[in-house]
Every structure is written in C-alpha cells, then in structure tokens.
C-alpha cells in the first residue's frame, strides 16, 4: 500500500534495529517535549488572553525552575548521547572476520571488487547474515556510500581508505545512494545492494571469476618487481611483508603505527612518509603508476600474507587455497536448516 508513499525505510541489516530503536526513543522524547511546550503555549495563551481590567501578573523568574529545566534536559541529552555513541561505535567497528569488499568510487559510479575477485559496477551482491566490510576510496572527489535499508553511511574520500560494514538480514534489493554531492550526475550515482540467500550467492559467486583479489595483487607485486626487495626471508632491502598486516611497526622517525589498510596504502604511494626503522629510503613512489584498483589488489595481497588479514573470505596464500573458503562455512550453516 505504501509502495509510493513509504513512511519508514526497509529494515535489512543488524544496524537498522539499533538505529531505529534510538530514533524511536528520540521521537518519543521530542514528541513529549513538543506536547509539553505546545500544550503550555496554547493553554496559556487561551487562559491568559487579554481581558480588560485584568492586568498581567509580573513574575521575575525562578531559579529552581531554571535549574530544573536545564538539568532535566541535560540528563536526557546525556542518555541520548551515550546511546548514540554506542550505536555509532558498533557501526564504526567492523567485526574481525568480515568478508571484504573493496569499493572505488568515481564520478559517477561505484566500482566494487570482492576479495574473491568478482567485480561489479553499481551493484553489490552480498550473502544474507554475513558481516561485510567495505574498504573504500575515491578516484576523484568525495562521495558517500549510503544504504538506507542498512542505516549505514560513510563518506568515501580520495587519497585514503575509509571503512564501513554491515550485516544484511533480509534478502532483497536495496538502494545504494551517493550522499555526498559530487557533481553533475550526483543523483545518478546510485545502485543496488542485492542481498541473497547463501545458496544463490554461491551460485552467483561461481560465475566468471578471474581469481581472488589477492592473487591479482600477487601478480602486480611480481610485475612491479616489488619482490626483489620485499623478500620473504629477511635478506631483502625492504621489509619482509609476511605477517606485517595488523601488527605494530616501528618507524624510522621513532613513531610506531599499526599496519592497517591505510598504512599499506600510504607505503605504496608515499613510501618516504612512514618508513620502517632499519631500512634505507630507496623505495620509489608508485603514485600515478598504479590505479586505485591495483592498489587495492596489492593491499589485499599483503593482507593475505598475515593471519590477521586472512579473515573472512580473503583467502590465505593466494591461488593455493580454493576461492570461497569462508563462503562454504556459511553455506554449510544454511544446509543444516
């Protein structure tokens, strides 16, 4: 009935319930406030309307009242704040073993690449009931990845990764919008997130795969000659990349950083900025030499070299392991039903 007149967005992720609950709480709180104020205003202005010979009664004010209506709202606000913060933390913290999808936004399309190697444009196929982590970057301006049904939004910035995640709960096709104004066809930069039953998803996944993203990355790694320095023993002129992802790294300037996706990305594009302690600054920059997709593949490859990066569907040592290791685990789960 409300096909053309929706009053509430579809609810299709684990976050949706959390956000809706807080939203409903806010609706109730503000509904009560509105009721209180509107009733008071209407009642006072009717009850105390001007009558000849009845002067207004002057009231200076009341400090206790002022305190009451400062402190009570403040307490309510703090409840909202804390609740909001908790929901936000959940939305900002991807689970460890999430399936990874690399997102490259450009004017005006979404390019999505699954860790397993499938590439899509403006469409993202995901299985139901599985955590999906989006590792996103932009080729040009700022975009924003928004799926109303998932109550999930994250700006996609050029020059770095931003991360978002969701866990779809209901099969179906959902709007994907760009919500950060990005130029002429901003409103055309839309797509669909298609949530599938695990079995269907398996079937979809098996079509037209070129190999996992990390394998592509390994190929690029070899083509660019990275392996001559980044050797898997400790004899190379560059750091050994085995097991680097997710670990703290000591830098030449004394700082320590965690080797996350953004760090790996920065090392490829601006190797001098955060050089690893004990190594010479000999690595050339690859800025302009590799595309965003190639950087993603390289990052996926380096991640696959360490246990922290092997989570989810990102397969371990590339090529060797069958493509959909984690996918099978879920499909087993669904077979039990």
């Amino acid at each position, binding site marked *: 009935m409300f096909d053309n007149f929706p009053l509430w967005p579809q609810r299709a992720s684990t976050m949706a319930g959390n956000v809706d609950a807080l939203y409903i709480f806010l609706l109730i709180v503000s509904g009560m406030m509105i009721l209180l104020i509107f009733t008071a205003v209407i009642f006072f202005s009717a009850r105390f309307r001007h009558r000849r010979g009845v002067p207004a009664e002057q009231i200076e004010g009341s400090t206790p009242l002022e305190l009451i209506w400062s402190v009570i709202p403040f307490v309510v606000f703090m409840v909202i704040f804390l609740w909001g913060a908790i929901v936000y933390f959940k939305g900002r913290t991807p689970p460890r073993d999430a399936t990874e999808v690399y997102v490259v936004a450009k004017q005006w399309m979404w390019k999505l690449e699954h860790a397993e190697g499938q590439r899509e444009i403006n469409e993202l196929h995901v299985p139901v009931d599985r955590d999906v982590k989006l590792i996103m970057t932009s080729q040009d301006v700022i975009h924003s990845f928004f799926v109303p049904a998932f109550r999930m939004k994250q700006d996609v910035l050029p020059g770095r990764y931003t991360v978002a995640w969701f866990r779809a709960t209901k099969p179906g096709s959902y709007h994907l919008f760009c919500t950060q104004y990005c130029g002429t066809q901003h409103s055309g930069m839309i797509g669909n997130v298609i949530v599938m039953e695990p079995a269907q998803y398996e079937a979809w996944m098996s079509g037209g795969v070129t190999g996992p993203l990390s394998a592509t990355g390994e190929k690029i790694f070899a083509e660019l000659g990275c392996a001559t320095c980044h050797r898997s023993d400790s004899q190379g002129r560059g750091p050994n990349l085995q097991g680097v992802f997710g670990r703290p790294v000591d830098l*030449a*300037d004394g700082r320590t950083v965690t080797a996350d996706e953004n760090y790996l990305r920065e090392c490829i594009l*601006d190797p*001098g*900025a955060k*050089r690893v302690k004990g190594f010479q*600054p000999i690595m050339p920059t690859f800025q302009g030499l590799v595309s965003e997709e190639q950087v993603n593949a390289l990052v996926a490859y380096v991640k696959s070299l360490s246990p922290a990066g092997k989570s989810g569907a990102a397969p371990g040592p590339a090529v060797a392991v069958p493509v959909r290791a984690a996918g099978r685990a879920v499909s087993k789960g669904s077979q039990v039903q």
Partner: protein
Amino acid sequence: MPDSSLIHGEVQNPALLHHFAEPQQQRDAASLGMWIFLGTEVMFFGGLFCAYLIYRLKYFGDFAAASQTLNAALGAANTVVLICSSLTVVLAVWAAQHARRTMLLGSLVLTIILGFAFLGIKADEYQEKFELHHVPGASFQFQKSIPGHPDQMANPQHAQIYFALYFIMTGLHAVHMIVGIGIFIWLLYSAWRGRFTPDYYTPMEIGGLYWHFVDIIWIYLFPLLYLIDLHK
C-alpha cells in the same frame, strides 16, 4: 559627505563626532573597536596557523627540509627591523601625547622607513624563491633531503604545501605591512598638519595598535617558518 556632525550644535572639539557625548567616550570606542578588529585579525591568521600546525605535524621532515631553504638570518634581521619599528611607533604615540612635534615626525618617518626596509628584505627573499622554483604552482621544483636523513629526499608535494603556506602567511602579513605603511603615511601627513594634540591623538594610538599587532604576527611567523629543525 554631508557630515551631520558639523550641523549639530554645541560641538566644540572639531574632532568630536556628533553622536558621542564626550571625547573620552569617543576615544574609548575607538580603542575598543581597534582591539576587537585585532581579534578578527587573529582569527583570520588563525585559520592559516591551524592548517600550518596540522601539516607541520603530518609532514615534519618535509617541512624542515623546505624551511631550511629559507635564509634564517634574513628572517631574524627582519624581526629586528620590525621590533625597532615597534619602538619608533610607541615613541611616536608618546610624542603625540606630549606634543613633541619633532620627535613625533621623526619617529613616524623612521617607522615608515623601517616598514619599507622590511618589505625590501621580504621582496629579496621572494625573488630568491622565484629563482629557485620554490613558488607553488606549475613550475614548482624541490629537490632536497630531509634534515638528519641525508639519504632520504623530501616529498616535493609536501614541500609545496609548506611553501604554499609560507607564501600565503607571509604574503598576508606583507599586505598588512603595506596597509600599515599607508596608515602611517597618512598619520605623518596629519601630524605634519598639526592635527594631533595631547587631547586628541586617537588615530596615532589605534594606528599604533595595528602596527604592533602586525609585529606580533611576525614574531610568531619567524620561528614557525624559518626555524624548523635548524640544528640538523
């Protein structure tokens, strides 16, 4: 301009504008107005300082490398020039207040000369930057190692951000200097015409406030721009 103050009766002090009750009120209004304007100026430079702070922390090595292409001695010399000009400005204000005409005119002339000296040194530095292709834009070039790491070249893009901030900050400061010199030439003219008396020297006072403020900005720009990691 049909200045209604002249029409309004009972005005005795020609400098007293019609809407003020007494000279003291007018003086207080002017000085408060100037201080508030300086508050605006602080925030104007504040946006630049914010950008500077963030990139300096992010790209410290590159900033140090870029900074060391500046001539710190010239920067220090310019600091001294500005400090001397601040002294001549307070002396001028004092002279106006105490009706010392010669001292007033002399201090104002000195201030203007020092102002031009500052701009001259600055122009010399700018010229060198042009010759070295250190001006951000299409012809920007930067090849220098990071201080303390002779084997590591600074990232030219990050150095360009340094130079962009350098030129915008010092350029904005120089614009303020030029405006300041203009104000002081006008003050010199007014002083020469004998417009300032111990009872009325408000323009001297607020002009001086402006000049000192420009000096203070430079007092910060000098260490921030010229003295990054100089010891390495």
